[in-house]
């Protein structure tokens, strides 16, 4: 059993997946597989969808699947910034087009300037309604 361990943190935007000490970490980098032992030189790379294998100090192994992301290595800290889903340029592009289309559909009549007067009247009305309701409640008490 090795004396030296490194700290591994696997986080995604939605939650922390794993955090703890490990003897060695294996990941699938964009240029190939990587094995990281304690004291590794600082490194940063993108990850391909694949497994992150963590060798724990008690000789057990934990395996996590990540759908891509980034790996940051500092001598005794390894951070995996995992993506929550597989990402590719064309998927992103498709999502962007969909968001745009939805906006265009929404503004079929295409009014591109904000009617501030109308907006403030509308919002003032909403606020007045809420205030009136509160006043009414106080009066009832």
């Amino acid at each position, binding site marked *: 059993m090795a004396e030296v361990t490194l700290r591994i943190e696997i986080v995604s935007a939605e939650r922390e997946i794993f955090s703890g000490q490990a003897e060695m970490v294996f990941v699938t980098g964009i240029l190939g597989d990587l094995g990281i032992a304690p004291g590794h030189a600082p490194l940063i790379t*993108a990850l391909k969808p694949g497994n992150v294998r963590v060798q724990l100090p008690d000789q057990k192994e934990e395996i996590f699947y990540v759908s891509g992301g980034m790996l940051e290595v500092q001598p005794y800290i390894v951070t995996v910034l995992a993506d929550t889903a597989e990402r590719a340029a064309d998927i992103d592009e498709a999502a962007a087009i969909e968001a745009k289309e939805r906006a265009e559909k929404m503004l079929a009549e295409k009014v591109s300037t*904000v009617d501030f007067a109308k907006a403030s009247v509308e919002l003032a009305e909403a606020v007045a309604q809420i205030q009136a309701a509160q006043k009414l409640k106080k009066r009832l008490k």
Partner: protein
Amino acid sequence: MAVAKEIRTKIRSIKNTQKITRAMEMVAASKMRKVQDRMRRAQPYAKKMLQVIGHLAHGHPEYRHPFLDQREIKSIGVIIVTTDRGLCGGLNTNLLRATLRRMKEWSDQNITVQLCLIGKKGEAFFKRIGGSVVAQVDHLGDAPAVTDFVGVVKVMLDQYLEGKVDALYLCSNEFINTMRQEPHLQQILPLVPSENPKLKHYWDYIYEPDNAKELLDKLLTRYIESQVYRGVIENIACEQAARMIAMKNATDNAAELINELELAYHKARQAAITRELTEIVAGAAVV
């Protein structure tokens, strides 16, 4: 007894409404706790991300990523986060009011505003009052995923890279506590790089592939996505808190109303009894 019967029917209907509002209050309370938990779980990622970006930016002072560059501001992109559903008090109204105030200031300075709307309430509002909406997404539910925002974020980032907007703001509610939520306008682009005092001596990463730009690009995009995600999650927590309070008020109001109606009911009932008695006594007197 006609009046008493009418009142009784009314009391029953209010009691039914009260049941619904009480249930909604409890549902909102439990959802709020869940969302708060999600909010907390999203923190480590953003924190780590910022550290790595800080390292990268410091390691490459010669390369300025456009996301970090301050430009003269002629146009501003605003991502406005609203709820999909109503019955949450003045939450959306307050947010839209705060946003509109800023938009008015900008338009007075001849800065154009491009909008990106998340949530149905904002959509309905800007549909009525107009505005240049470039991207829109709704029906996210209570547990949206980061991937739900990839599209809208990409549209806004593209706009920024193409120079159509010179700054990007995120407008959402800030969760202060259960009783208080406040509109919050946060600048997400250009990123203000944090000074990292820990970095005394120069060191740099090994890059794989050997292109810091590409990696930084990816990191920054992910970071901004995670910021938007956090904003939306926080806004959902606010929505649930606001709905909880609104429904609690509604339940209390219903209870008050029932009290009053019950009083009126008893009065009516007693009046009816008294009248009957007088009639009987009067009848007996005649005999």
